[in-house]
């Protein structure tokens, strides 16, 4: 192994240092300095990541071990980082998008008080650190450390404006729902330890260790890992935290809740694809597919009727994550990773764009109060439109290629699945353009003050938008399907040593493949047109009927509240006020009271009367004699 590569620890360490400096010095450092440190540390990581990428490209994959984190008996968990193609790709995404968002944030958050500004960057740096740890971890435990770390940062950043209890509640919700998934993840790890005796990827995915796992082990482990992923990657049934997480500052939403953290689940499954590709994981794969599909569809329907600019994007994210899971479930791991990448570009772009809008609107997020912003905010409008086209999947924008790969994979599995997936893609196009049109075209519907205030965002904000827009356009070129160009799927080729998709059972002819692309593209274009027609002259009106159900997110939050939160709340109250006090403690105190009562009663024997004393004595004597002489033998 190349010793120079040992220094990959610097990649996560730089953001960590940034976190420490910004965190401890938040009251003493100037905002500029904080911004510089925050962004600079990520930039350092980015440069290192690029260097690492180069190394990997040359075939230098390796594991760097530093010290033993935990070593008990035969279980040894080193603190080790793994660099391979998969992590290299993710490193680039994280540091790249992360850097842009840091730069953007320095401007976006400039209004904050100095201490809070420092805190914000500290959190952000800590997040990047955790995310890097997550993707670099050479074993499941290090991965898990990063996994929970990003959860923590997400919690901290959602509740960044901690004066608003609504936001704090959202933060709690995010953390707790993540924890539910984390529990499953943990149990999966324990299961693996119990069966295979190791958590290190390199050792785990060897034939020897895999052979130790029975079919049911694999089913259980893969399912548990998947449940873990549903928490982090916002899938049914644990997706409801993500829309609420929009309480955090918009760059946070862009970074954490669109580009990086939420894709951790996809990364984790891709990382352990060896398990998922096994025959015994068939059931799990199906479950993943259908869960992903259902999530994608459900979120897309909800997104149709949301009025909060960030909520639309949040549901869109959930929906896109669903797509990625469909890819995973159908064995198209590369497609999933590909979509992670393209999604990181365009969704970060969209979020940052919405941030620009919100910034301009003075904090307003309701699109019903917007309209016609395109005139005042050209760059934002333009880049936002690029993002919409990319996500809608129009060639040659990046989204097209990645989504196409997924749709293809779905078709191979079943045409019905494909149909649903296409339908969902159409919904995506529809609600994205609804958003675009309501926000940027037509008449302005906000207050005069807001109108007066409208302006394009500063350079520091628009520049990242532009860069991301470019990436959204060209990002797909790394994965051009083979049918279009021989050797166009560079991503697959690059990832091949680390991750490769499951081979399809039967092949599709080139013409069929073109046909499918054509159908989807045509339908998408039609849908976009329809959306433009419907929302061209948007007027605010109350949602009714089915639209109301959608606007209220199918009442899922209310359902969870009713069947889980409320009963637990009630149970807690019952246990606290009644069971614990009356029954458990009551028994203890009751014993005491019983003694007291017994004392009072027994005292009556002591009547003070000689006669009764003698009587009691004689009676006991009679009793004892009777037993001694007539009952005992």
């Amino acid at each position: 192994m190349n010793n120079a590569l040992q220094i990959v620890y610097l990649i996560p360490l730089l953001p960590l240092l940034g976190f420490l400096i910004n965190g401890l010095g938040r009251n003493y450092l100037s905002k500029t300095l904080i911004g510089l440190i925050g962004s600079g540390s990520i930039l350092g990581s980015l440069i290192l990541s690029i260097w690492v990428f180069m190394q990997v490209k040359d075939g230098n994959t390796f594991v760097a071990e530093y010290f033993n984190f935990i070593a008990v008996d035969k279980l040894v968990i080193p603190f080790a980082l793994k660099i391979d193609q998969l992590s290299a790709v993710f490193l680039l995404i994280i540091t790249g998008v992360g850097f842009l968002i840091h730069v953007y944030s320095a401007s976006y958050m400039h209004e904050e008080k100095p201490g809070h500004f420092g805190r914000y960057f500290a959190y952000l740096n800590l997040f990047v650190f955790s995310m890097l740890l997550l993707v670099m971890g050479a074993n499941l435990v290090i991965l898990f450390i990063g996994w929970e770390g990003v959860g923590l940062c997400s919690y901290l950043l959602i509740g960044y404006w901690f004066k608003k209890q609504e936001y704090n509640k959202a933060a709690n919700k995010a953390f707790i729902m993540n924890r539910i998934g984390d529990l499953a993840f943990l149990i999966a790890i324990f299961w693996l330890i119990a069966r295979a005796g190791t958590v290190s990827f390199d050792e785990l995915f060897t034939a020897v260790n895999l052979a130790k796992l029975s079919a049911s082990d694999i089913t259980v482990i893969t399912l548990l890992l998947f449940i873990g992923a549903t928490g982090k990657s916002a899938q049914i049934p644990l997706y409801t935290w993500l829309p609420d997480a929009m309480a955090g500052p918009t760059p946070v939403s862009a970074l954490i809740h669109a580009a990086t953290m939420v894709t951790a689940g996809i990364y984790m499954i891709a990382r352990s694809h060896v398990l998922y590709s096994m025959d015994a994981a068939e059931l799990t794969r199906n479950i993943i597919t259908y869960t992903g599909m259902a999530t994608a569809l459900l979120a897309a329907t909800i997104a149709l009727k949301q009025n909060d600019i960030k909520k639309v994007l949040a549901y869109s994210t959930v929906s896109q994550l669903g797509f990625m899971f469909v890819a995973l479930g159908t064995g198209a791991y590369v497609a999933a990773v590909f979509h992670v990448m393209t999604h990181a570009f365009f969704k970060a772009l969209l979020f940052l764009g919405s941030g620009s809008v919100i910034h301009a609107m003075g904090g307003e997020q309701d699109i019903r109060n917007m309209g016609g912003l395109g005139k005042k905010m050209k760059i934002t409008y333009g880049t936002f439109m690029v993002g919409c086209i990319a996500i809608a999947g129009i060639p040659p924008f990046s989204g097209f290629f990645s989504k196409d790969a997924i749709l293809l994979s779905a078709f191979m599995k079943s045409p019905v699945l494909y149909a649903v997936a296409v339908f969902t893609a159409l919904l995506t196009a529809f609600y994205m353009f609804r958003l675009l049109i309501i926000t940027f075209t037509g008449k302005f519907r906000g207050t005069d003050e807001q109108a007066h205030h409208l302006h394009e965002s500063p350079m520091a904000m628009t520049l990242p938008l532009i860069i991301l827009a470019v990436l959204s356009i060209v990002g797909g070129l790394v994965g051009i399907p083979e049918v279009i160009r021989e050797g166009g799927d560079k991503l697959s080729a690059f990832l091949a040593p680390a991750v490769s998709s499951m081979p399809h059972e039967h092949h599709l002819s080139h013409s069929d493949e073109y046909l499918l692309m054509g159908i989807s593209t045509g339908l998408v274009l039609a849908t976009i047109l329809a959306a433009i027609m419907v929302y061209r002259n948007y007027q605010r009106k109350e949602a009714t009927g089915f639209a109301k159900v959608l606007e209220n997110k199918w009442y899922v939050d209310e359902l969870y509240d009713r069947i889980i939160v409320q009963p637990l709340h009630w149970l807690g109250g019952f246990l606290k006020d009644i069971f614990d006090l009356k029954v458990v403690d009551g028994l203890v105190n009751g014993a005491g009271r019983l003694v007291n009562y017994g004392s009072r009663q027994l005292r009556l024997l002591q009547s003070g009367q000689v006669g009764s004393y003698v009587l009691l004595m004689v009676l006991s004597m009679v009793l004892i004699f009777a037993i001694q002489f007539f009952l005992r033998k």
Partner: protein
Amino acid sequence: MNITIIDILWWFLSVVAIFSALMMVTSKNPVYSVLWLIATFFAISGHYILLNAQFLAIVNIIVYAGAIMVLFLFVIMLMNLNKETEPQKNRWLKIAGALAGGCLMLILVAALKDAAAKEQVASVNQGNIGLIKNLGKELFTTYVVPFEISSVLFLSAMVGAVVIGKKE
């Protein structure tokens, strides 16, 4: 089964003893109680004589019937209790007391009746261990230590009577 004069005497004395004991317990007037108790003691002394325990018979009459009971009588007279002053005690308690005592007797008798060997006999009217000569010899040889110790008992009783009785 031939009934001898001793049998007749035995039964007579027993009946007298029990009857006077019952009368002692049931008499309302304390003075009568004392007198009935003396009668009991006489009957018991009679038994002693039947058993050839002449010394004890005499001592019983002199010490118990003579000295102790007179002391009782004297105290009763001193307190002017020679009237039927005792108010009715709780009747249930009385019945319970009588029942309990009766039960105790029945159980003890039943327990000892089975077990006490029939052939074991207290020899009546024979042997001379009860004579003062024999008892005295034994008392001042073998039992001299307890005899001396009983003087401590008397001393303490004496001190006690002084402590209790002395006017302050």
